[in-house]
């Protein structure tokens, strides 16, 4: 089985160790060229160390956590919800179209024309669905890259990111995804209606 790209990268410790070993070997030489190489390697080691420190400060674990998954799930829910609504709109239009046949000759065709315009407009769902699907794929790609970064830096996935909001602000979470939240019936029961 092929190792993921991230697994081929050296860890911070491995890079530092490799350069230090190389520098040790070169330090035993006394020529001017070797001194220059040693200095360059010292600079390189410093830069690599800074790079790792900066990457560490990005806190990829926080980025990874629930943010990306949540965005992915929310967008998928948008596609699902618009698809369901559009299907329902079309279903109702079909009923209108049938009823239009019972209307007087001067009214029926006008209603059918209106229904046709609605059918045409409903094709938006296919276009927006495809666009959102593209965004979802991009998010998945970002998620994979972040995973690779976490792996390279020797981190582990956090189980969940803590929501630090308090009070009323913590109540603002937008519509729940399917299967989450409670139904109108459950709300009515909860409120005693």
């Amino acid at each position, binding site marked *: 089985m092929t190792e993921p790209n991230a697994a081929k990268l050296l860890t911070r410790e491995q890079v530092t160790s490799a350069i230090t070993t190389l520098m040790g070997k070169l330090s035993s030489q006394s020529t001017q060229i070797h001194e220059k190489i040693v200095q360059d390697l010292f600079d390189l080691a410093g830069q690599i160390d800074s790079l790792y420190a900066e990457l560490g400060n990005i806190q990829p674990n926080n980025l990874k956590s629930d943010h990306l998954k949540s965005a992915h799930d929310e967008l998928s829910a948008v596609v699902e919800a618009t698809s369901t609504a559009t*299907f329902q709109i*079309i279903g109702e239009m079909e009923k209108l*179209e049938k009823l239009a046949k019972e209307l007087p000759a001067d009214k029926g065709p006008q209603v059918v024309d209106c229904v*046709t315009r609605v*059918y045409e407009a*409903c094709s938006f769902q*296919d276009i927006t*669905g*495809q666009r959102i699907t593209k965004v979802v794929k991009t998010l998945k790609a970002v998620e994979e890259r972040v995973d690779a970064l976490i792996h390279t830096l020797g981190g582990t996935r956090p189980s969940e990111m803590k929501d630090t909001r308090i009070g009323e602000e913590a109540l603002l979470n937008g519509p729940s995804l399917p299967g989450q939240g409670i139904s109108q019936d459950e709300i009515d029961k909860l409120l005693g209606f």
Partner: protein
Amino acid sequence: MSVDKKMHVLVVDDFPTMRKIIRNLLEQLGFSNIGEAENGADALRKMREANPKFGLVISDWNMEPMTGLQLLKEVRADNGLKATPFIMITAENKTENVIAAKEAGVNNYIVKPFNAATLKSKIEAVLGPIG
């Protein structure tokens, strides 16, 4: 000579909503024998099994496991199906897409979103006046 509205038409799209829209628009044009498939592979199977054969295929492009373009190529390579009129109806509107479809033997190409008048005119361009 006008189009035989009794001909069997196959609508191929992975979005059920879009299949329903195209079906309804075709019914408004007078077509009554309309089949549906949810991807290229499903369409190819239905085309091979169909009796009588489909007289027109209206297919989306971006589908899995078989795209509309792959379906078109399979149809053109199949001796029993190769003459089937094929209209691509897709959101893929780049020049290279249209060229690829043309090279594969598409009869016409409709870009989404589209309207009823465009669908009618493209079908007429392929089959003749609908009447």
